[in-house]
């Protein structure tokens, strides 16, 4: 057996484009997914009963079905119900829904760990409900669960490899395209896998650095 990685690396432009898409998808999914997670965590912890119920159902539905099925449902299933989406939009929706559900549970764990006295103190300072949640409860909650959150975001980034299956042109799609041209399947996927590994390490570092700076202060 002989390996020929040159045949793969010649197509570095495709790989670069794939990496750019993977990063882009992850970035959008992270920002919107985190916001969705915060909203649902609030709903599950402080919302009215019916809203708790909806958020809870959403979380359990997403967490107990595979990502690829969610993606297929959105991309192939929804058009039959009249909603047509491009592969990219379908991928983003699927990733956002996915991260939203997992981060809901992660953030909720942090919220529930907030000491009651802090909330009472904030209320006695005449802060509004929204202010109490956004300024007193949320930042320490995020800080507490940030390591779990970082892991989950990395998992979602790695999961985005599946989006190539509906022809979103991310990294795994690029690897598939390259191997269909040069018949070097093993080499193509090794290169893509190593690139994913590098992305995962970089993303973890970036988030560990960015979390304290932008989300909850030090």
């Amino acid at each position, binding site marked *: 057996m002989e390996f020929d990685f040159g045949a793969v690396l010649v197509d570095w432009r495709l790989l670069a484009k794939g990496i750019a898409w993977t990063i882009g998808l992850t970035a959008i999914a992270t920002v919107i997914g985190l916001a969705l997670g915060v909203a649902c965590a609030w709903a599950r912890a402080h919302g009215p009963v019916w809203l708790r119920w909806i958020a809870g159902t959403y979380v359990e539905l997403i967490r107990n079905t595979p990502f690829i099925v969610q993606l297929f*449902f959105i991309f192939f299933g929804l058009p039959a119900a009249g909603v047509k989406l491009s592969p990219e939009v379908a991928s983003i929706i699927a990733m956002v829904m996915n991260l939203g559900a997992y981060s809901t549970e992660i953030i909720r764990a942090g919220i529930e760990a907030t000491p009651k006295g802090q909330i009472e103190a904030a209320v006695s300072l005449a802060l509004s409900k929204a202010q109490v949640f956004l300024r007193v409860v949320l930042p320490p909650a995020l800080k507490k669960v940030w390591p779990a959150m970082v892991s989950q975001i990395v998992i979602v980034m*790695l999961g*985005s490899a599946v989006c190539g299956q509906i022809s979103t042109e991310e990294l795994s799609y690029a690897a598939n395209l390259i191997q269909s041209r040069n018949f070097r399947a093993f080499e193509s996927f090794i290169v893509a896998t190593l690139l994913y590994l590098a992305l995962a390490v970089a993303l973890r570092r970036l988030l560990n650095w960015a979390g304290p700076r932008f989300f909850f202060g030090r």
Partner: protein
Amino acid sequence: MVDFSLWDILRNLLMALRWTVVLSLIAFVGGGLVGGLLLFARLRGGKAAARAVGLYVQLFQGTPLLMQLFLAYFGIALFGIDVSAWTAASVALTLYTSAFLTEIWRGCVASIPKGQWEASGSLALSFAEQMRHVILPQAVKIAIAPTVGFLVQVIKGTALASVIGFVELTKAGSMISNATFQPFVVFSCVALLYFVLCFPVSLYAKTLERKTHGRRA
């Protein structure tokens, strides 16, 4: 054109569901065995072994399962072995599961207080005896909840085997959807079946978790 009733769709999906279950069991049992060996190597094999196992875990946790499946599918073929989707999926999912389980279990063993090791060591127990009588009984109790919880991830992971042509629930869903032109109904059913499979396991894991925490607190 033949008309497919909802029952036709469900019946065919249920037939495929068993392969999802079988593949999950293969991955879980195989992954448990390999994970156990790796854990042993990590605890007993000195620094080099610990490093190697750590690297192994990072490799599998830091790369997409989809790529692992592709690599198994095309990698085993490089050795001149004819790979079926069965072999590739079993191998890839077993290795993937083993990496996660060995890490979960390592955490459980590490959470046993050092004094337990020292006390049992001072009683002149060998490593095997320490493990068997002192460490494992405590570690297993802590490990059960996260291990059951991880089973959900394994079941969901088998869905990716559809991509290399393994006909399980997801693949069957795609095929039926192509034949019936009812993707909305079909993928709803597929999702529902996964949910029916996974949700009880999730709930059970949650119950177990509450119990372990109750006991320790």
